[in-house]
């Protein structure tokens, strides 16, 4: 598709990915309408921790992609677009059993192989960095080049700094096709004409594209505490338990597994998560799961006993069947691009993936090889034709 000042793109989904794509499309001169059934950052983007973390990624394409995505945050922060919203901070991968120590060590090797800086931290150094850390922590690695950004802040900034038209409370019922080519989207019984359509609607993409057996919702319950420090992160890094790595590396597959992270927010509060509950798309939280998360968190970082829980909430991650995001042109719907299935990695990958999607829609090369993430890898999509 040639770049044209009259190109009108309908972007469905105002989460971090949709907002980023809309921003970069508009920056390139396209006219963009961003539609959301609720509003900006209303879904997983607004209900997630803010880890811009390579440390947590599965070795392979996800780890490489996360390194690109984190670097992209760095350049957007430097050029002013995301100034003040992206903060560098360390991730500490921590183990509490010999088996976990082995897993963390293996993961460290994989990270180093991908080009990531990995630092060994002995217990005295660790206690110096994170005073009060639990007695059970027997091994840890520091990944010093990770970062932090809040999904809703990024989304808001991307939209503020663009000419995108945002339509809130606007449910898109279908993509209108004519002769195999998208010509618009149906909104409240009317058609909004568009030259191209980007579907970045998370679990809402299922209904639009018939991806029911490819995308699954994975609920995560989380906790926000009161402030442990005034206006700065209370500890010097993001604590990621081996249980979280195990889930990311596909070692545990049981439903309702807890992958523990303790995320020190810039407000001085802690965000503690989270459960991984497959096929759950409700946003309720329950005392049994929340108390289990908190017991695990107290074991890892006992000073939390002095905190109060302000809120519990749940977000719904959208995961693909094979664990990889789905980004690229729809194999059969001309003019339709898909960007979803980011699971718990949307904040980290979002701005970069949005920028890639924008380039694809503009007919340009995305700059990195995304062929492994293309929608046509799923036979079920082929069957849609």
């Amino acid at each position, binding site marked *: 598709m040639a770049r044209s000042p009259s190109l009108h793109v309908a972007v469905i989904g105002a989460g971090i990915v949709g907002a980023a794509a809309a921003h970069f499309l508009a920056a390139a001169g396209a006219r963009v309408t961003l539609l959301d059934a*609720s*509003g*900006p*950052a*209303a879904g997983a983007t*607004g209900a997630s921790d803010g880890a811009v973390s390579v440390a947590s990624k599965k070795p392979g394409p996800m780890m490489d992609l996360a390194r690109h995505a984190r670097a992209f945050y760095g350049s957007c922060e430097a050029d002013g677009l995301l100034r003040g919203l992206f903060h560098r901070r360390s991730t500490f991968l921590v183990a509490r059993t010999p088996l976990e120590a082995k897993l963390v060590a293996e993961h460290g090797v994989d990270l180093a192989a991908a080009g990531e800086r990995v630092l060994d931290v002995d217990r005295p150094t660790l206690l110096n960095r994170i005073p009060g850390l639990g007695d059970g922590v027997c091994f840890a690695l520091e990944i010093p080049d990770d970062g932090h950004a809040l999904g*809703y802040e990024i989304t*808001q900034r991307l939209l503020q700094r663009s000419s995108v038209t*945002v339509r*809130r*409370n606007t449910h898109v019922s279908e993509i209108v096709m004519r002769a195999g080519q998208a010509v618009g989207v149906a909104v409240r019984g009317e058609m909004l004409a568009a030259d191209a359509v980007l579907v970045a609607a998370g679990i809402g993409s299922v209904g639009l594209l018939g991806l029911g057996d490819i995308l699954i919702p994975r609920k995560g319950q989380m*906790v926000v*505490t*009161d402030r442990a420090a005034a206006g700065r992160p209370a500890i010097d890094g993001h604590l990621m338990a081996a249980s979280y790595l195990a889930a990311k590396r596909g070692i545990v597959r049981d439903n309702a597994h807890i992958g523990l992270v303790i995320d020190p927010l810039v407000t001085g509060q802690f965000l503690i998560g989270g459960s991984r509950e497959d096929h759950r798309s*409700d*946003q*309720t*939280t*329950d*005392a*049994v799961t*929340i*108390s289990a998360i*908190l*017991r695990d*968190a*107290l074991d890892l970082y006992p000073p*939390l*006993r*002095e*905190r*109060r*829980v*302000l*809120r*519990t*909430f*749940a977000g719904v991650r959208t995961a693909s069947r094979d664990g990889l995001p789905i980004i690229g042109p729809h194999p059969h719907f001309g003019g339709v691009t898909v960007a979803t299935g980011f699971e718990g990695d949307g904040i980290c990958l979002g701005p970069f993936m949005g920028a890639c999607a924008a380039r694809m829609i503009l007919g340009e090369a995305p700059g990195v090889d995304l062929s492994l993430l293309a929608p046509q890898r799923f036979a079920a999509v082929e069957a849609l034709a």
Partner: protein
Amino acid sequence: MSEQAMTELPVLVVGGGPAGVAAAVTLAEASLRVLLIEQRDRLGGAIHRQPAPGAPQIWRGPARHRRNWTELTSRLERVAARIELRTSSVFLGVDGAGRFLFEDCRVSQVFARRVRAAIVAVGAIERIRPFEGWELPGVMSAGGAQILLKETGRPPEGPIVVAGSGPLLLAVAAQLARAGNPPLAVLERGNPWRRPKALASLMTAGPQLAEAAAYGTVLALKRVPYRIESEVLGVTETGQGLTIRVRLGKVERLLQARHLLVHDGLEPNRIGIPLPAPEADVPVFLAGDGREIHGADAAMLDGQRAAAAVLASLGRTAPVAALETALGKARAFQRDLAEALRSPPTLPSPETMICRCEGRRYADFTALPADASAREIRLMGRFGLGACQARFCGPMLAELRGEPLSSASPPRWPLRPVSLAALANFSMDQTET
């Protein structure tokens, strides 16, 4: 759970004020088991707050309130065997699995209890119309000051100004005067003389009128000026005290005081409270000022009404007609009162604090898109996400937007910040498997 086991479950009553205690007593007198939860270490609610042992007893308003309460507590003693009273325990709401959750602050543990029905009677919260400086130390809600006065028997030291709207201003000012520290002035925003119809209707309310007259007499004797169409425009700190910029009618003045007590009416404390659901498996009812602002006189009656509704939901007959008539009168009185004191809305200055918990100002609110959803106001604006969970900024924003800031869905728990250690120490109901 078997039918028999279900009938052995208690009915939950949250709140140990007049509405909650009346509900608990009515249920227990009908032979039901009751679980009564109160956040403080003793019953009484805001209205019947007892002085700490050894504190001077001060004049605490009308004798009929004390008579009613004494009578109710003696009924409570007669049925105490059927009431499990948990004081120093906070209702945290209902979780996604339908568990009723509580924090026992004495043993630092969150516990769940299965109940067959619930009555929530958690009273009112005060409405505050924000002005610059309302968040400063030295500014208290008039109701909060009244509770502390009842507890300590001593008024705060130094000059006091009482401002806002509503009959509570009169009551607090009179109680402060009787306790030895008459306020510099009472500033009422409204002007009932401009609403003769409502005023005339109020004149038919016997006990409340007598109460107001008694307070008015005290203020007159102590020469406390009571100014209508007067309000606080802003407050700043100066040395040990406050400089309060006020409007008296059409004139602006500066007053110096140590304490400013503010209050702009009451509203039901409904943030995060489960919606009333009389048809649900575990029916939920609201009672007292937590349902609708009826005032202290009607709160006991409304507790009885809620208890009767629970009994009816269990297939027991319970006459409520007489209660409804009395409640109708209380409702009409409150409506007339609100109308008599109604004043036009005032827009806060950009620097005015709206969300005190997170330090968010009116300018932060107006910077949001005009069509921002309630979720965006929370998420992007960071309003209503602080420790008070929108109990104060929520009503302020509702008034400024002209529509309520709809509550976060699904209903969230905890309703109040809860000790992390206590929640980690969660204990399930013994009957849950």
